[in-house]
């Protein structure tokens, strides 16, 4: 930590000194995600990309680095910081039944996922391993399988538990035939996430492993409910996602929204944690000039980081869904230009 020293000397040679210490933060890491979890290497070439988000289901037998994803190992070993979103949501496995598998010589049987989430009316509700199942220890085999693969990866990652708990719980959840409100689901998730973090932290992890809990960050009450100090003491980062979906949305307003709620509502432990923006994006339908909007992001991040509260340390552009870059080449070059600007350098 650098130190500035002030010396005041009088004519007789008597002195007084005073010190002030400070820290120069690392540049913010500019990051990316490519639709479908596809290999982003080509898109990132020639740009100051230093961070990446990936998504895996605990149901998937190939979590680290993932099925046919050797490029993730290459990127990680080259120094790209990986934010690995690990979800109880069930995908990546052939059916939603029970699984029996062996991890390092131990056989595990995990029951079928018993929870439904993202219960938006008129849609098919995805299945997920239930918070009750987690707390009953029924999912320990899934965690053991992920950990065993993680240990062979060769570099540490941030493990983000859940993608967006607010999206998962917005319309309530159900587990084993019992319905839970949004708030009840949040409380159950906090218990389950605590169980999972404790499960992993209780075992040998690659040095530098960090944890966070996943939120879209669009609902203030939910954000507060899912960030109690007891859980934040076990986590290393805050996290939320940022989308511009309205012509009036500015980068400063969108990145600021959840931060302001956090500063107002969360405790000192939570606010001591740096922030990973696991996803940010600009929806082209409402904001046709994505490049112009992207160009305003560096100044917004610099300004937010100069203000009180937790610092944003990684921002990963979500080139998929709402964030799809169109035309891709224009958007990518805007992203590369942004990431070549303070505070990314």
């Amino acid at each position: 930590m650098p130190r500035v020293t002030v010396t005041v000397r009088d004519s007789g040679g008597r002195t007084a000194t005073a010190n002030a210490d400070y820290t120069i933060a690392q540049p913010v890491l500019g990051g990316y995600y490519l639709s479908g979890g596809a290999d982003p290497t080509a898109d990132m070439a020639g740009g100051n990309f230093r961070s990446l988000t990936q998504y895996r289901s605990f149901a998937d037998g190939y979590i680290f680095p993932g099925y046919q994803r050797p490029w993730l190992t290459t990127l990680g070993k080259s120094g790209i910081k990986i934010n690995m979103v690990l979800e109880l949501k069930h995908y990546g496995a052939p059916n939603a039944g029970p699984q029996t598998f062996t991890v390092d010589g131990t056989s595990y049987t995990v029951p079928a996922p018993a929870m439904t989430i993202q219960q938006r009316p008129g849609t098919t509700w995805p299945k997920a391993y239930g918070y009750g199942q987690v707390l009953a220890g029924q999912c320990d085999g899934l965690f053991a399988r992920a950990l065993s693969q993680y240990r062979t990866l060769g570099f540490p990652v941030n493990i983000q538990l859940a993608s967006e708990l607010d999206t998962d719980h917005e319309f309530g959840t159900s587990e084993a035939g019992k319905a839970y409100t949004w708030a009840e689901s949040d409380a159950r998730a906090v218990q389950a996430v605590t169980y999972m973090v404790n499960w992993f932290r209780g075992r040998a992890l690659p040095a530098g492993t960090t944890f966070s809990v996943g939120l879209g960050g669009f609902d203030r009450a939910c954000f507060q409910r899912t960030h109690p100090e007891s859980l934040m003491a076990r986590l290393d980062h805050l996290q939320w996602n940022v989308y511009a979906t309205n012509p009036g949305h500015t980068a400063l307003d969108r990145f600021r929204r959840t931060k302001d709620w956090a500063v107002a509502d969360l405790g000192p432990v939570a606010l001591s944690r740096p922030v990973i923006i696991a996803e940010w994006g600009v929806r082209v339908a409402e904001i046709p000039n994505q490049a112009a909007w992207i160009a305003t992001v560096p100044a917004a991040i610099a300004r937010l980081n100069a203000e009180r509260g937790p610092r944003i340390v990684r921002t990963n552009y979500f080139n998929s869904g709402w964030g799809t870059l169109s035309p891709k080449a224009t958007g990518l070059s805007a992203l590369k230009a942004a990431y070549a600007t303070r505070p990314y350098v």
Partner: protein
Amino acid sequence: MAAPTASASLNASIYSPGDQMSLTVTYGDADTRPLTLTIVVTDAQGNSSAPVRVAAVIDPLTVTVTDDSGRTWTRLSDNGTVAVYRAVA
């Protein structure tokens, strides 16, 4: 003679590269006194010159700022009790 006093405060504890940094130094010494000498020259015939005023300081203070990371601090202002320095993170 009294010993001087000094305090130093930065406008932040964490800076991003390129940020403007501001250091405020508050200092003093009980012995330090500004004074003004007024000189009038009078000859044998009693003719006096116009008064000439000279400012002086008893036990003046010097302030130096060093940074162990080699960062250069530039003095922006100094009124004798408060000095402000700037640097770039």
